[in-house]
């Protein structure tokens, strides 16, 4: 189901957590809300769920206004970071809970509830564990139970709040792949919150980058990575290096030296240059960014070199293949292959 968030504002005790946020979530897509802590991403998710009510604005599920509906009426599946399983119920009871609490008129017969729960247990690859209690399962298994429980009620939207946040890196990667598979198979409109950019880039159809209660950018992972629209997004998604530059005569200057990059349509004055550390060319020309190597660390297959550029001591990072001869030098000159200019400040 389509979800439309329209000019939503949320305040907690006069403290604004979301400022006038609008977001269209398409039917069947897997969208990530990504941002640092305090960016309002969890608040937005809870507003969609109905666990919080907006101070202003509306939320539509399809064409119906869901803003005034209670959580119970919205028919959403919610997965919590810390699973929130019912400890006194078996796995099977946990999964069938949502169906069992329905009023008699809409409740399926017991045999049907059991059949569906077993089917979901199979979907989350936990067949045979139906009689266990949550405390007898590992973290990854618990989160899969939580997902099965949320899916049992045939939710209009599936909402996940940092679903893998409490799990270790190995399990997290596994579950990520598995969640993508489940999504492709069941086709639920899914919104998930994460502060892990790698997770968001790998898993989502689109991401919505948030900062300080505002949406910074919405787009496919590739668009957001390749064409960030704000310094925040450039810095938050992927690795980035930044340097203050001066625009003059249609060129970029650092410390009174032209660095061989055209300014494009940027007006003269101060600006900030952003580029990816791995997206650079080492060159020996005069017009380049040159600096003294301050540290060099080997990170897996690459060597990350920190350079001090110019007299002002600005530090930037550049990645080299770990066996590149330039890694031994004390001075390096390079030019970003792709870059972006943002106004200074």
């Amino acid at each position: 189901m389509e979800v439309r968030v329209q000019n939503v504002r949320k305040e907690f005790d006069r403290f604004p957590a979301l400022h006038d946020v609008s977001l269209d979530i398409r039917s069947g897509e897997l969208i990530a809300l990504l941002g640092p802590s305090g960016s309002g991403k969890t608040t937005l998710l809870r507003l969609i769920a109905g666990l919080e009510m907006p101070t202003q604005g509306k939320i539509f599920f399809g064409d119906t206004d869901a803003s005034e509906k209670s959580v119970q009426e919205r028919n959403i599946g919610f997965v919590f970071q810390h699973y929130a399983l019912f400890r006194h119920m078996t796995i099977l009871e946990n999964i069938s809970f949502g169906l069992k609490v329905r009023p008699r008129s809409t409740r399926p017969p017991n045999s049907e509830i059991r059949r569906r729960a077993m089917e979901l247990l199979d979907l989350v690859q936990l067949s045979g564990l139906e009689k266990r209690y949550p405390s007898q399962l590992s973290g990854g298994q618990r989160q899969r139970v939580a997902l099965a429980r949320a899916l049992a009620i045939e939710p209009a939207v599936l909402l996940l709040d940092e679903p893998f946040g409490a799990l270790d890196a190995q399990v997290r990667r596994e579950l990520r792949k598995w969640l993508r598979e489940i999504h492709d198979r069941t086709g639920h409109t899914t919104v998930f919150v994460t502060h892990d950019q790698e997770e968001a880039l790998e898993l989502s159809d689109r991401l919505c980058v948030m900062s300080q209660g505002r949406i910074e950018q919405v787009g496919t992972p590739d668009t957001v990575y390749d064409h960030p629209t704000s310094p925040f997004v450039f810095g938050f998604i992927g690795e980035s290096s930044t340097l203050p530059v001066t625009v003059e005569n249609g060129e970029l200057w650092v410390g009174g030296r032209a660095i061989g990059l055209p300014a494009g349509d940027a007006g003269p004055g101060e600006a900030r240059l952003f580029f990816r550390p791995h997206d650079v060319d080492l060159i020996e020309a005069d017009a380049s960014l040159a600096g003294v190597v301050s540290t060099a660390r080997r990170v897996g297959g690459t060597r990350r070199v920190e350079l001090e550029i110019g007299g002002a001591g600005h530090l930037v990072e550049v990645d080299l293949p770990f066996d590149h001869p330039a890694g031994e030098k004390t001075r390096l000159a390079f030019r970003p292959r792709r870059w972006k200019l943002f106004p200074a400040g």
Partner: protein
Amino acid sequence: MSAAVSPAPRRGWSFRRPSVIPGFGLTLGFTLTYFSLVILIPLLALAIRSAGLGPEGFWKAATDPRVLGSLRVSFVTALIAAGVNVVFGTLIAWVLVRYRFPGRRIFDAIIDLPFALPTAVAGIALTAIYAPNGTIGALFAPLGWRIAYTPSGIVIAMIFIGLPFVVRTIQPILEEVSHEVEEASATLGASRFQTITRIILPSLTPAILTGFALAFARGVGEYGSIIFIAGNIPFVSEIAPLLIYIRLQEFNYVGATVIATVMLLLSFALLFIINLIQAWSRRRYGYGN
């Protein structure tokens, strides 16, 4: 402590498990000595003293109608009081944990007062209020319901002294039951009522049982506050601890120890059963272990 350094592979049950925490022998020895001095030896003395009567004499003394009457009064009122305390204690714990209101901390501290107040003071205060001419007693008197000087008074006194046990056992567990679990229940479509009856109360069951057991045990053993409010009419509102005291004053030491032994056995049996249920539900429900 060689066992601590290189733990041997476990071969079944052994009295002493390898452990990295030193001092097993010392602490266990101290615990047993202390336990014996303070609890086991006095209780044993009680049993031996009452056994001096022989089985027949013991049975006769124990089934004396006045003794049976007092035991009935003690246990029935204690059960009722513990039951009332469980209901309202849970409610109070809920309010204290879930809501923030002015004066919450003071209210929270007042809960403990029955622990600290001399029981005689409590008894006199309760009697003054619940007597037919007291503030609350006067409200009930026209309805023909006398509270003080009847078993109702005993129940009131037991509720007073047992309340903190229930509140203080439920409070920490209720804090542990996360808010997220309730939210999860709501997102799955459960109404508020269903969330309380199907999610919250089952999670609290072990704590509620513990609170019940403690409040009950305290009620059965209570003496000071009850004798003021009970009226102490044999067969109606005379509690077993009072009868023990009366027997002592009659220099009937054996008679007193017999009542005490019967009380001890009954209390132990009840507490043991409650403990078993508790262990079972704790295993099942997972909270508070």
